[in-house]
């Protein structure tokens, strides 16, 4: 560490897909303008996901719209803040596999409960209260 020349922030190009080549250091710097852009995009999308509640697309579609915006935001966070865009693809594969299996898990369980809900307790059922 003592022989290492520590670069100051000003020495680095600001547009940077630059690499600090110090012996075996392979540092990928995310440019600040990109981080700021992603931050702004996330704020805008947060506004969109709140604002979109003023519109009714139907009970099911409302959920998908909200989920769609959340997936876009999560993708931005994963790709840029979590650095997946420049990482080894294996890390992205681990993340995507976890997401895939969560989706598979929820999807199959919901499909299953759909079948059972026909037989169990449809919401229209209103039972009389016991006279106590």
């Amino acid at each position: 560490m003592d022989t290492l020349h520590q670069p100051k922030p000003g020495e680095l190009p600001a547009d940077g897909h630059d690499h600090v080549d110090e012996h075996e250091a392979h540092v990928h710097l995310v440019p600040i303008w990109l981080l700021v852009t992603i931050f702004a995009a996330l704020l805008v999308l947060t506004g969109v996901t709140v604002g979109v509640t003023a519109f009714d697309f139907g009970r099911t579609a409302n959920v998908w719209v909200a989920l769609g915006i959340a997936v876009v935001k999560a993708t931005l966070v994963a790709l840029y803040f979590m650095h997946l865009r420049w990482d080894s693809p294996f890390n992205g594969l681990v993340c995507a596999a976890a997401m895939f299996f969560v989706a598979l898990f929820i999807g199959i369980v919901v499909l299953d409960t759909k079948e059972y809900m026909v037989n169990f307790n449809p919401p229209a059922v209103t039972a009389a209260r016991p006279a106590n």
Partner: protein
Amino acid sequence: MSELVNKQQAAVALAGDTFSEQRDPHHHPPHVAHHFESAEQQFSSAKIGMWVFLATELLMFGGLFCAYSVYRHNHPEVFEFAHTFLDKNLGAINTVILIASSFTMALGVRMAQIGNRKGLTICLILTLLGGLGFMVIKSIEYRAKYEHHLWFGAGNQYSKLYNGPRPHEGPIQQHSDTPALTHGEREQAAVAHQMAATTLPTQTFGPAFIDPNAGTGDEAKIKPNQVMPVGLAPAIMAQQAAIEHGGFKDAAGHTDSHHKIAFEDLPQSEKDRVATFFNIYFLMTGLHGLHVLIGMGLITWVMIRGMAGAFGPLYYTPVDLVGLYWHLVDLIWIFLFPLLYLIH
């Protein structure tokens, strides 16, 4: 036997020789463990390990999201009613706070990468403040829920197990139309409104109704006339279509999923399920809040090490990995916020 041991020892010695030849004898950074060939290999190994851990985190939360999905799919009107007790504005503010703290964390990793010690400390302090702000707002929300008997389990006034005092009937006020009131007052007014419009059972324990399809504790009961191959019979398809597209009918017979549902609008079988929304809410946000607290602890640790000058272009692994953890906490909240606060 001894021959085998000798062979193994020879093999190990040979491997050791080969390895030491590959090494650069002049450069051996102190932060590289002996079983790694290079700092780069050590870094990518640590990162893979962190991602595998994050995958298990996603799967753990996935179980809760699964419970949420099943419950919301089966009882959408319960969610549309119960979520009105959550404060959209506080949820949105918390979302912005977490996103901002994720941004400062990403900046902090960059500061560590270029060896800017002061910048790293400032970024991590800002991130910590974000986590603190999030937890303060969350505890304000939790406290309001507790005081209004909208807690989890038996602490929820909609629960069959609830044994506490009922709030007095107050003036009926639509909480969404009175912006002059504070959050607490609005919530209180909403509770009073719901309670005034509700004829809750006088008994404090035990089921409030008998559901003919509920089955017993021992075995589930299936309606006898509907026992048929699932997914094929036209009768089932028709019923599913009716449930999916019919939606909730209000008192006037309208099927508008966008209108505000009051407690008295709920079918009796759904009224006893309102408490479960709060159980799901507290379980999901509680586990998430625990992650925020753990993340804040980790950031403090990294910040102290960073102030001592432990990180630079050659070694910033802890900053990077704690950053990944913090971003995951943000990522999960990005899903929790619309799914819990913005139901419509």
